[in-house]
């Protein structure tokens, strides 16, 4: 039986890595600048009538697909590197024993940076609660983590503008903080499933990982492979829907339904969005197209938030740890918060 020793890690020197990174960024920038021209050329070559609805839709599609994918790669890579400084275990030890209020704020902030996948929601939830993180603080984290993420913010920033991205960030965090705080104030610990309250585990004693620059960049590359590999289809679907809206849906019809005049559109958008599930990357091209047609910002963002923050699959997973009543409170508090955010946006951005 031969026992080969593990291969030693070979890390490239930092200078070389940084130089490579700069070269890659410059190349990225050069290609990115050519996208609009390339899309125009491609659509001109295709046999569609000039100025037709179809042409507008195709133009939108061929420009947006590479643009969004390239942006996503950049944003996810950067965030993958940043996230290598955070981990759920570190976040948990920062949050355990925190009082409400400050704890909620911290939890929402950490939710943005801590690596999180919805398949991990239950272990994370139980891991937090059993280590003494208050219930409301755990919820703040659980609300912020999927909703306020780098994919949503990065795409909003570039496709819709920095003012909207910043407002989304602020209101997303505020929503997570306030909703978590309210749930904490209600003292619903007895609505957790029984087994969750019985778990009292000492946090696992994992040696903190010291990572080299090489490993952090690798973490970025892994994130790109993982996330872009998972969401590219959503994006293409989202852009196709966006392209159809852009090319074919009359602006006055949309403005009548989703415009600022129709006050009821915010609650309707939210109740449509809650059972729907899409990745942030898939919904933002739709947001871009809707806004271009004169839909009200608050209504569209409320729709987007409800699609991303509350979804049926996630609720089914959470049912394993939360009683139905607690799930109802969770959905009720978050949905009301999103509706409030929608109205506020519509009032603020005129």
């Amino acid at each position: 039986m031969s026992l080969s020793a593990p291969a030693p890690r070979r890390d490239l020197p930092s200078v070389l890595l940084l130089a490579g990174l700069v070269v890659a960024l410059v190349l990225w920038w050069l290609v990115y600048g050519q996208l609009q021209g390339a899309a125009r050329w491609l659509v001109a070559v295709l046999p569609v009538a000039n100025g037709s609805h179809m042409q507008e839709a195709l133009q939108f599609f061929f420009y947006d697909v590479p643009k969004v994918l390239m942006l996503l790669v950049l944003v996810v890579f950067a965030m993958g590197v940043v996230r290598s400084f955070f981990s759920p275990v570190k976040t948990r030890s920062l949050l355990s024993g925190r009082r409400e209020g400050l704890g909620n704020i911290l939890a929402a902030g950490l939710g943005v940076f801590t690596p999180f996948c919805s398949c991990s929601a239950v272990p994370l939830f139980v891991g937090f609660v059993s280590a003494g993180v208050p219930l409301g603080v755990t919820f703040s984290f659980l609300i912020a983590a999927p909703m306020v993420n780098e994919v949503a913010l990065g795409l909003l920033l570039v496709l819709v503008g920095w003012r909207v991205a910043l407002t989304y960030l602020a209101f997303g965090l505020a929503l997570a903080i306030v909703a978590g705080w309210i749930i904490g104030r209600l003292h619903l610990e007895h609505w957790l499933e029984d087994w969750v309250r019985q778990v009292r585990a000492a946090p696992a004693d994992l040696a903190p990982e010291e990572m080299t620059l090489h490993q952090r960049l690798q973490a970025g590359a892994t994130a790109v492979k993982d996330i872009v590999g998972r969401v590219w289809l959503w994006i293409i679907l989202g852009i196709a829907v966006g392209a159809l809206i852009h090319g074919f849906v009359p602006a006055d019809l949309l403005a009548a339904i989703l415009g600022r005049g129709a006050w009821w559109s915010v609650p309707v958008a939210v109740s449509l969005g809650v059972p729907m599930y899409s990745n942030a990357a898939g919904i933002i091209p739709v947001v871009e197209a809707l806004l271009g047609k004169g839909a009200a910002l608050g209504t569209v963002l409320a729709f987007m938030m409800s699609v991303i923050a509350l979804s049926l699959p996630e609720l089914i997973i959470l049912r394993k740890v939360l009683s139905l009543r607690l799930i109802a409170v969770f959905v009720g508090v978050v949905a009301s918060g999103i509706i409030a955010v929608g109205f506020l946006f519509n009032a603020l951005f005129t």
Partner: protein
Amino acid sequence: MKNVKILGSGCKRCMDTAEMARSTAERLGITITLEKVTDYAQIASFGIAATPGVVVDGKVVHAGGLPRVEDMEKWLVDA
């Protein structure tokens, strides 16, 4: 013989991790008993906050995300 537990509810990454443990052990010629722990209460009792988790001979060596192959080799060889 080493006992390796993979903690995870059956998500894609958990299965990939279990497969990595199996193939790495085979490649290095180490015999292990591989166990998949999918019960949430049991997973939680190991005190981790993210899955997949890897436990070698009762000690948690990893929690959250697909581990690196080099790390897996290290755990199997000298943990």
